[in-house]
């Protein structure tokens, strides 16, 4: 089966799995699509974007927390963004996934755009990743 995870384009030596995808939504009534390199993070219960990615869309805040992250930072939860990524089906065919699960928005631009286990579960997928070869895949079993 081919791979759909790899290192990020900005650091080909990084050992964490990334995948190119998109964030979609609206800004002032017009559709907006932003290219995003999602970091597949099995340590994240929900997906999170940086402040600047969040600012590209008109989103609806629904809640927040001053705590809850490993770094002690806060999060605002917003709806109105679609997360787009891909998985392989059991035959190895690409399946595009578009999810409208609520996302967290960071207070800053530190760190990656995070594709959490919520999205992986939504896609009915599992993650396989080899940090030695920097190859892996999100796939439906």
């Amino acid at each position, binding site marked *: 089966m081919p791979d759909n995870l790899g290192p990020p384009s900005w650091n080909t030596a990084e050992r964490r799995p990334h995948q190119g995808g998109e964030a979609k939504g609206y800004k002032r009534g017009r559709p907006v699509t932003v290219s995003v390199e999602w970091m597949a993070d099995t340590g994240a219960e929900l997906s999170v974007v940086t402040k600047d990615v969040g600012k590209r869309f008109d989103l609806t*805040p629904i809640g927040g927390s001053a705590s809850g992250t490993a770094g002690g930072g806060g999060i605002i939860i917003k709806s109105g963004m679609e997360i787009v990524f891909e998985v392989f089906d059991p035959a190895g065919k690409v399946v595009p996934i578009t999810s409208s699960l609520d996302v967290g928005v960071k207070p800053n631009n530190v760190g990656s755009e995070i594709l959490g286990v919520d999205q992986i579960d939504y896609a009915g997928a599992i993650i396989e990743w080899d940090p030695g070869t920097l190859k892996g895949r999100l796939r439906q079993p």
Partner: protein
Amino acid sequence: MTDEEFRTWLSREVASGDMSESQMADLLWQKALFDSEFGEADSPARQAYRLKIVGYVAELRRVDTDIHRLLDDAKRAFPGRMIYFEPIGFDLF
């Protein structure tokens, strides 16, 4: 993130038009309710709700182990209201 840092962040959200004044006030009020019960690191409430996600929405405590279930429940029960939440004894990401 301290309470002051959280308030400053929300104020910036309001200033940029990404959150309304009433949403900020609602979220801070729900946070105050959370802090009154869970504010101290060794509070009995933290022991009782360990490994749960505790939220406050519309002045009511909501508890779940799944963040999306907690959010969906809050939106369904109290549309338009803000939920303040924290995971107790673990991190969400």
